[in-house]
């Protein structure tokens, strides 16, 4: 049985828990797979370490946490240092190239582009950086189709911001493909 494990890690307030939820929702509601999302975070509302974990499978999922990570998003240097050693051989690491300057080494593929800056400058709002990152993770992991992931994004954000999030998602998707080519 296929078990695919993703971890979205960084700092509280970066929207990583939301990104994880949307990824899991895409798999579980739109892609017809099974998915579990769980999280851990500190007592702070902002700052502090934050992570969101998503397990995707064709069958029932028992243990809801990451055992050996297939795909890791690290939005801080601290998260990159802490979690990259859990990555499977052949796994994929996505980092924000402005925030993670010391690139972790290992038997995995590293993809990097300026995620927050893409949100700020190309999409126009820094707040959608998590959706840029999500678009990139969808492209890099191939666990859900681009269409289903986009549906999950659009069903999860306020109506007034549909276009903004759609743009953020596409931008992340395209940039990740370009960066990993």
């Amino acid at each position, binding site marked *: 049985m296929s078990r695919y494990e993703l971890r979205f890690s960084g700092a509280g307030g970066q929207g990583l828990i939301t990104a994880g939820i949307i990824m*899991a*929702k895409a798999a579980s509601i739109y892609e017809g797979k099974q*998915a*579990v*999302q769980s999280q851990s*975070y*500190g007592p702070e509302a902002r700052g502090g370490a934050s992570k969101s974990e998503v397990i995707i499978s064709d069958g029932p999922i*028992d243990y*809801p946490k990451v*055992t050996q990570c297939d795909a890791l998003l690290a939005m801080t240097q601290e998260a990159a240092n802490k979690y990259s050693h859990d990555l499977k051989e052949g796994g994929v690491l996505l980092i924000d190239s402005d925030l993670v300057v010391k690139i972790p080494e290992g038997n995995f593929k590293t993809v990097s582009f300026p995620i927050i800056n893409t949100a700020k400058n190309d999409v126009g709002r820094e707040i959608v950086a998590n959706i840029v990152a999500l678009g990139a993770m969808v492209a890099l992991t191939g666990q859900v189709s681009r269409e289903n992931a986009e549906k999950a994004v659009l069903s999860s954000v306020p109506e007034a911001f549909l276009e903004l999030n759609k743009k953020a998602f596409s931008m992340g998707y395209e940039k990740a493909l370009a960066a990993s080519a």
Partner: protein
Amino acid sequence: MSKKVAFLQGNEAAAHGALYAGCNFFGGYPITPSTEVAEVMSVELPKIGGKFVQMEDEIGAMAAILGASLAGSKVLTSTSGPGLSLKQELIGYGCIAEIPCVVYNVMRGGPSTGMPTGPSQSDVMAAKWGTHGDHPAICLVPASVQETYEEVIRAFNLSEKYRTPVMVMPDEIVAHMRERIVFPEQGEVEVVSRKSPSVSPEQYKPYDTSFGDVPPLASFGSGYKFHVTGLNKMQDGFPTTKAEIVQAEEERQVRKVEANADDIVTFEEYQLDDADVVVIAYGSTSRSARYAVNAAREQGLKAGMFRIKTFWPFPDKQIKALAGKVKGFIVPEMNLGMCANEVERCAQGKAPIHGIFRVDGEPINPDQILDKMKEVK
């Protein structure tokens, strides 16, 4: 095939389960990691004419639901460790005055403020012994989002049927985890309501045992007047110190739950037929255990799991029976051995018990359990 599905968190599912069961009053005080229950109830209850009250603290919240229940509402409060400690005096009041209510408590690290965002399973003894005195205890420990929804419905049904407080205690992992949930249609799952009096207001006694161990409960405001107190009481609800009455009433209150253990206790047996190493687990820890059992089976080990779904009453009978058949029990839990002690009591020395106890805010991972299985073999 057109059943409503959603991708929900355990806490959100709990709130929707309560609404399905007919909950129309919520009294609470927000606390991590249970606040989402209050959030959903505050949005949904006004839509159906129910009442949501955020009280001044957890004690007030518990008092509010007891009062609302006596007025005929189906009631819920949600909280976590420190809030549970505060509610304990009034949970005892609910037990002795026999007031149906559901207390949903998400287990986080403790004691005291402990670790607000960290998972734990260390409130399971507080569910039985947190309030003083002999009293009945029912406590359900779900392991998934769907099960949290279903067990909250069952908690309401049990509290109404047995006229007593019922606790639902997911650990923080189950409470905050998100999974797909399929909602039942109206009428698909049984919903139980308390027995109303069949006698006139003049003849009514709130603890009239001629109707059995669970006397009918009238609603305040419906024309029935009766006395409610935390003191030991007579059939009419007024206090007494008469030895034979107090003895009989205390015994009845415990008996109404204990004698119906077969109706209340639920569990899952996984790969037990030929198992010689049996993991006894509950809540999110049972998910690690299932993973470990599957991995062990692939390696040729005869491992199985007995999953506790109802922590109180404890599945004494089932564990006693298993103890005679296995080489050993493994009890993984996010506390320092609360369930293991109960297993030991049931096993009566017939099977060794190996604990895996974690209180560091991290889940017990499947490898820890698998390693222990190999030791026991």
